[in-house]
């Protein structure tokens, strides 16, 4: 019995090693990493672009997605299926296809894009285009995760709160939101990772201002791997730890 358990554990450890193996590439012998002025300036600018614009996109996703998720969580099963089907579309769409669709729909080629251009809002190769793309990329992940988070709050607690005299908005703010906050954080962290790491759609809609993924690609094309590595480390440090920590905390709470 003990032998079998140790065999299973060893198998799982091998699996984990295989999953983490790509990180050994950070130690690969590719010569000195390049971090001169040609690389450093655009790289740091791309970090700023990614952090600032992705944060704005996340604020928009939370502001719009949270009430939508709260609505879907209260829908009938039938209506909910429709909403979920719609939310899955941007998730399942190939990123490049999403980028092309967004450029055509919001760029100067479409009537909405032309109208926005007249208002001075350029929806291609602009911060607005970058944010719009990230909102489209992350929204489905956040809303579906938020619906699951709201579902995890027992309905009887919400009804009990209402019977204690709280109107619906107060029930949401004082019961539903606090009890689902960890699930919402998990949903947001998935949206964050997905958006900040997005390349395929962003490279079409917003080659400028370049975020980290696009800049990594530019560095790879222009200077080769040594110029990619420093930005890659920054990219991993920015994109991974926060969502990773949120997920670990969520799992700990679930098993507490």
């Amino acid at each position, binding site marked *: 019995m003990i032998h079998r358990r140790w065999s299973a554990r060893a198998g799982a450890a091998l699996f984990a090693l295989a999953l983490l193996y790509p990180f050994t590439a950070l130690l690969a012998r590719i010569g000195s990493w390049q971090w001169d002025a040609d690389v450093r300036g655009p790289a740091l600018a791309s970090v700023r672009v990614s952090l600032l614009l992705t944060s704005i996109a996340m604020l928009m996703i939370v502001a719009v997605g949270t009430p939508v998720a709260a609505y879907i969580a209260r829908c009938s099963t039938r209506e909910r299926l429709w909403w979920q089907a719609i939310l899955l579309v941007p998730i399942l769409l190939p990123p490049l296809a999403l980028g092309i669709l967004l450029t055509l729909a919001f760029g100067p080629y479409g009537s909405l894009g032309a109208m926005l251009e007249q208002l001075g809002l350029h929806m291609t190769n602009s911060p607005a285009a970058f944010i719009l793309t990230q909102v489209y990329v992350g929204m489905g992940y956040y809303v579906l995760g938020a619906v699951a988070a709201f579902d995890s709050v*027992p309905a*009887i*607690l919400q*009804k*009990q*709160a*209402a*019977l*204690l*005299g*709280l*109107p*619906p908005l107060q*029930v949401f703010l*004082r*019961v539903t939101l*606090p*009890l689902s906050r960890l699930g919402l954080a998990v949903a947001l962290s998935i949206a964050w990772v997905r958006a900040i790491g997005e390349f395929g759609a962003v490279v079409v809609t917003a080659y400028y201002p370049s975020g980290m993924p696009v800049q990594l690609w530019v560095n790879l094309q222009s200077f080769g791997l040594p110029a990619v590595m420093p930005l890659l480390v920054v990219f991993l440090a920015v994109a991974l730890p926060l969502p990773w920590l949120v997920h670990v905390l969520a799992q700990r709470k679930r098993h507490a």
Partner: protein
Amino acid sequence: MLKAHIIKKRRDFKLDVPLEIEPGSAVGLFGASGVGKSTVLACIAGIEEPDDGFVQLNGLQLFPPPLPLHRRPLGYMTQEPGLFPHLSVSENIHFGISKSLAATTEQQQWIETLRDRLQLAPLWHAPASLISGGQARRVALARMLARKPPLVLLDEPFAGLDRQLVRELIDDLIFWSRQIGFSMIAVDHQAEVLKRLCPQQAIVLEQGRIVQSGTWTELYKSPATPLLGSLLAPL
């Protein structure tokens, strides 16, 4: 005064229960499991919606149309205490009380009375998620009574508790029903619990209909149906 006629289609029968409860009185809804007792309470509370009929409490129309839950002046307690796990015991008890009301001396004294009588002082600042099942029922009772509702609905709130605690909670409820003057409708499938809580009046349901109502003495003396007879018989 509560006047109600609850009509609701269930899977295997139609619930059709007229009720009239005098202010300050306690009525026990008795019957076997699955006869519609809890549904009657849920329809009055607004947790479920009747298909037809009406519910009026002290002249306030609760149904139809369904009055939103937060406007229903009643307390509802089930065997699931439904405490808010992210709040402390004290915060749970103060949950339904507005800040302005909570600041009044009368309300503060009332909360202290509930706290002392229900022996909640040692738990007062404990997280609600970390207290025992019996303690949770006492907190739920205090939370419900903190708002002094004119009608209290109890759906097997003592299920799974030890006899000593059940006795104490029932005595507390009777004590406060006299103090505050609330009406009470209690549901249970244990006759001895209901008899102690609502000694004056019992209503017996079978397959969604009232088959007998009266005092417990009358029920024991001449049960209307063989099923009721067997439910009241000693083990």
